[in-house]
């Protein structure tokens, strides 16, 4: 495949080329899909520690006296409950109760936030926040000035600790701190998208290269988008454009834990409340395949030959050698333990439904 020239490059582009990565277009960026191989990289993250370039994600600084009010109005989680040095998963809703994006909100100070958004939605999200911003509150796109890497896996803390003066053991999940990382100022947050312990680090664009090199020198395994997608699917995490989009509600996506209906008014609140009261007609479920054929986005899910849903993502577990995925299933069929079929290239393949949070520990038989 030839890569179009007009794609953006992250500050780590030269490092990816040097490491022999296979580069692919992704959301307007040239990104590494794999280095040594998707399965080997995914295994490294489950068993030791891996390193991801996530600089393509959008990073906004939201600051000013009404910054909290702006984020309360434009995101679903309760920002007033977020203390400084803590981050929260949240959604940007639309007026219809659909999802414009899923994001992480970091509170640096009472009126100073960083918001991390998906690369594919960066421009639209920025416009959305700015359209709602009262005077005196600024929304600045700091994506290009910064870089971002994820260090993920059971050995993540051991790999990162020698490079920083931040006491990582004292960082709780979704806690963050600023300090010296590989010799320069950066922010470390205990977050990730793999289902493992780990950290995401934001630093100046030029500095992120030194941090990347230091981690590679410390034998942290570089991992591409292929491993990232496999790991997040296995962990039951949604990906924008697959499990969630403008037409899916947090109710059917199982994301109501990130929606605080009692926090006061916000965009889409009435529509989400109505969807919750009506009950979802379909639910996002985990799928464990009995065989090895991969369920892929768009494949039909059937029960006794009747279509009851559609696959949103599929992956092959690198550590358990099983095919799994997620999909929307009509609510009357969305039962834990139910056996249904995925139609793969014209043939039905049996799979078991389960809550998506159980995908990471499930086996074929239980």
């Amino acid at each position, binding site marked *: 495949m030839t890569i179009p020239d007009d794609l953006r490059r992250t500050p780590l582009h030269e490092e990816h080329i040097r490491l022999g990565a296979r580069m692919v277009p992704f959301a307007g960026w040239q990104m590494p*899909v794999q280095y040594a191989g998707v399965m080997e990289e995914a295994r490294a993250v489950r068993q030791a520690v891996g390193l991801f370039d996530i600089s393509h994600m959008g990073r906004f600084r939201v600051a000013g006296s009404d910054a909290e009010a702006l984020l309360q109005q434009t995101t679903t989680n309760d920002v007033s409950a977020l203390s400084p040095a803590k981050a929260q998963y949240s959604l940007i809703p639309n007026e219809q109760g659909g999802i414009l994006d899923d994001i992480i909100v970091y509170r640096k100070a009472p009126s100073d936030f960083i918001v991390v958004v998906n690369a594919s939605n960066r421009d639209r999200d920025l416009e959305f926040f700015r359209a709602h911003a009262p005077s005196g509150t600024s929304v600045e796109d700091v994506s290009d000035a910064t870089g971002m890497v994820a260090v993920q896996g059971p050995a993540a803390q051991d790999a990162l600790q020698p490079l920083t003066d931040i006491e990582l053991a004292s960082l709780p999940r979704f806690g963050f701190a600023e300090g010296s990382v590989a010799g320069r100022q950066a922010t470390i947050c205990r977050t990730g998208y793999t289902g493992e312990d780990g950290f995401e680090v934001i630093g100046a664009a030029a500095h992120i290269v030194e941090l990347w090199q230091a981690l590679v020198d410390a034998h942290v395994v570089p991992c591409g988008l292929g491993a990232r997608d496999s790991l997040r699917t296995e962990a039951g995490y949604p990906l924008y454009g697959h499990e969630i989009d403008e037409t899916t509600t947090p109710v059917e996506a199982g994301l109501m834990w990130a929606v605080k209906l009692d926090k006061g008014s916000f965009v889409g609140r009435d529509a989400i409340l109505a969807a919750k009261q009506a009950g979802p007609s379909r639910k996002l479920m985990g799928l464990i395949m009995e065989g*090895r054929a*991969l369920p892929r986005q768009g494949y039909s899910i059937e029960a006794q030959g009747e279509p009851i849903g559609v696959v949103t993502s599929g992956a092959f577990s690198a550590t358990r050698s099983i095919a799994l995925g997620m999909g929307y299933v009509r609510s009357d069929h969305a039962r834990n333990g139910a056996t249904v079929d995925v139609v793969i290239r014209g043939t039905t393949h049996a799979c078991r439904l389960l809550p998506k949070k159980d995908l990471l520990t499930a086996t074929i038989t239980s």
Partner: protein
Amino acid sequence: MELPDDLLYTRTHEWVRLDGTTATVGITDHAQCELGDVVYVELPDQGATLERDAVFGTVESVKAVSDLYAPVSGTVAEVNGALADQTELVNQSPYGEGWMVRLTVAPDCDTTHLMSAQEYERYVQESGH
């Protein structure tokens, strides 16, 4: 890219080893490299009759699904059962343990449409994939 001289190759990246009336078929090193980690291989039943250029199976990697095309006509004498749960053999040993089917072919089996190793190498370089 590994390309054994004693094999014949297709434009769809299968290889075939002819030994009398037995033709062993698999996918090339180039193909497995492009596909990445193979996780599922669907093969025909023993005894199935294959027409040249017809789809006889599927190979699926974490990235893509690819059809397998019969390089020659024949009857399936044996399928590689190891690929049912050791699909990594396709990546690790595409010309050896990662073979896919053995066909019984006619003694005068036509191979003039197939490429030599040198021709296949040039084909891959020129087509840029």
